[in-house]
């Protein structure tokens, strides 16, 4: 029997529904999460099964309801807050960075904050500068938070279930352009541990370390590279923290060339950190400097021809990889 396929959005919804059935403490809090099922319809149907007590519509008050989730997590619930666009995490910063991330440490281990923040990242939706950013580096910078970047429907379900079961605040970034991507998703209850990278494609000549939206780009580039006689390995860290440094470094040592791809801003961003980890861990095995590719250092523009050049594409990744492997 062929494996069942779900879209990325369906996989997220299935993870939430299964966890809500398993654990009555899990509830969802956010804007238009109930009957509307969010603008992306990721949560459609959940309120019908679980009711308004557990699928809680809020006013447009990101700081307020995120703060409520922090307090609720400390006192016996396991809230999943929905921040509609990743750009809006800026409104929740004090609650996440100063409250959620630090409550366990500052209290000497007394209080725990088992909450999940689900939000989005990704450009090219023609949504302009305040609905298109990929700001996961911000949370990755903060001790006490975990940051998850699923890149397939399979990973989305398994990682989200782990995030909900985690005793810490976890931020779960979903690429909004990936919601309709289909892939195999088992019907059974499975989890993927946070902090374990996945080799999405094995290769010999170059490693493409890619996160979230960039995994599909890297896989597309790898097919193009194969036709050009270059074998590319695609490694997906899946979480920026905890970070599976060993898998990244081992792949870099094997192939000796690395491009790091992430849709966030490169400057002081995820690509900078991953490149540094690889450089520190595999320097003497590298045949070229680690290359970074991410969003251009500009606000995301609205106009399609402008927006399209701000993020790496299969072609730009192919070109970069080819020139690293076959310098002219």
């Amino acid at each position, binding site marked *: 029997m062929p494996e069942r396929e779900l879209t990325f959005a369906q996989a997220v919804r299935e993870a939430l529904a299964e966890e809500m059935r398993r654990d009555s403490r899990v509830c969802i809090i956010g804007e238009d999460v109930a009957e509307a099922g969010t603008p992306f319809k990721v949560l459609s149907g959940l309120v019908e099964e679980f009711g308004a007590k557990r699928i809680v519509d809020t006013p447009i008050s990101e700081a*307020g309801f995120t703060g409520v989730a922090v*307090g609720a997590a400390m006192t016996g*619930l396991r809230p999943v807050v929905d921040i509609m666009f990743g750009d809006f995490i800026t409104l929740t910063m004090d609650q996440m960075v100063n*409250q959620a991330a630090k409550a366990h440490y*500052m209290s*000497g281990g007394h209080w725990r904050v088992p909450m999940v923040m689900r939000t989005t990242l990704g450009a090219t939706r023609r949504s302009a500068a305040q609905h298109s950013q990929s700001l996961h580096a911000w949370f990755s910078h903060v001790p006490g938070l975990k940051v998850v970047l699923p890149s397939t429907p399979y990973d989305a379900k398994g990682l989200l279930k782990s995030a909900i079961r985690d005793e*810490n605040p976890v931020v779960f970034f979903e690429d909004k352009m990936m919601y309709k991507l289909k892939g195999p998703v088992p019907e059974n209850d499975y989890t993927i541990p946070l902090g374990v990278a996945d080799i999405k494609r094995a290769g010999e000549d170059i490693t493409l370390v890619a996160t979230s939206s960039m995994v599909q780009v890297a896989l597309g580039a790898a097919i193009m590279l194969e036709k050009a006689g270059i074998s590319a390995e695609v490694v997906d860290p899946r979480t920026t923290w905890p970070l599976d440094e060993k898998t990244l470094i081992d792949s870099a040592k094997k192939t000796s060339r690395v491009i790091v791809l992430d849709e966030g801003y490169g400057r002081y961003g995820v690509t900078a950190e991953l490149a540094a980890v690889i450089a520190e861990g595999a320097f003497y095995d590298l045949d070229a400097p680690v290359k970074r590719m991410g969003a251009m250092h500009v606000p995301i523009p609205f106009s399609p021809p402008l927006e399209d050049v701000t993020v790496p594409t299969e072609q730009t990744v192919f070109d970069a990889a080819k020139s690293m492997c076959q310098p002219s």
Partner: protein
Amino acid sequence: MTTATSKPAASNSSADLPEKEKWLHAHRQMVSIRMFEEQVNEVYTRALMPGLAHLYSGEEAIAVGICEALRVDDYITSTHRGHGHCLAKGAAPDRMFAELLGKEAGYCRGKGGSMHIADPATGNLGANAIVGGSVGIATGAAFSAKHLDTDRVAVCFFGEGALGQGSLYEVMNLAQLWKLPVIYVCENNMYNEYTHYQETTAGTILGRAAAFGLEAASVDGQDVRAVNEVATRLIGRARSGGGPAFLQCDTYRYSGHHVGDINREYYRSKQEEQLWKTNRDPILVLAKWLIDQGYADVTSLEKTTAEVRAIMEAAVKFAIAAPYPSVDEVEKHVYA
């Protein structure tokens, strides 16, 4: 690990005690806070305390009046000026001092310090060094109480400085929409750090609560009996499903913004400070009433003060002698 020796300053909730015992207990609690803060200032002056602390002296009637109306399993969130709330909710002074000195025996194993004391055993979700930083946490605790159908209540202490923070109004809106059992207690000591609140606060304080339809009241924050009376009503209302409330308590901060804020005349006069201390001291106000009622006399109250002072001095000694955490503690508790 070193363990603390003394019992909590007192158990919570004197609601069921006869009147005399109830108010003698409240008096003792207020004196405990005053004596605690005296010792804090002392260890700061003797350069025994790392960093700074923000003293609660002058405001004791609020923490005590409200916490005496709470159960031990009710929640509070506190502020950077939080020692009074911790003690009033039942924290032990020796473990508090240990925390202030960064010692392993402290409530947070020395990792939090003065501004972050938290204690699950007494429902203290934590003091908070972000002004208005705990309003979400308190409201979330009330959300849990309602969701899990416990009949717990959450009290959110904050100073009038937090009235400038937008997150307060976000959670007041949520609490009223969802009828959450949370009491927002605004301790108006009139100074946002070094600035008079009238320079920072447009409109009225209670007008803010009225905008959301919250049950609201104001009370003389120097009168512990008045605070306790209105708190008992609002907490009982919240506990029985009546929803959130807002309580403005007018008070005065005897010391500076923190222990190092010595020269204050550029923002308030010594005469003003003296008037509050002489005429409206919460401990003196209650002492006078206790004596008038025949519940106490000067000698018995002085005896209480001496006893409490001895407890605080012993707590300081305990904390000074207690060991620091081992350096390998630094990476523990980042993640649960």
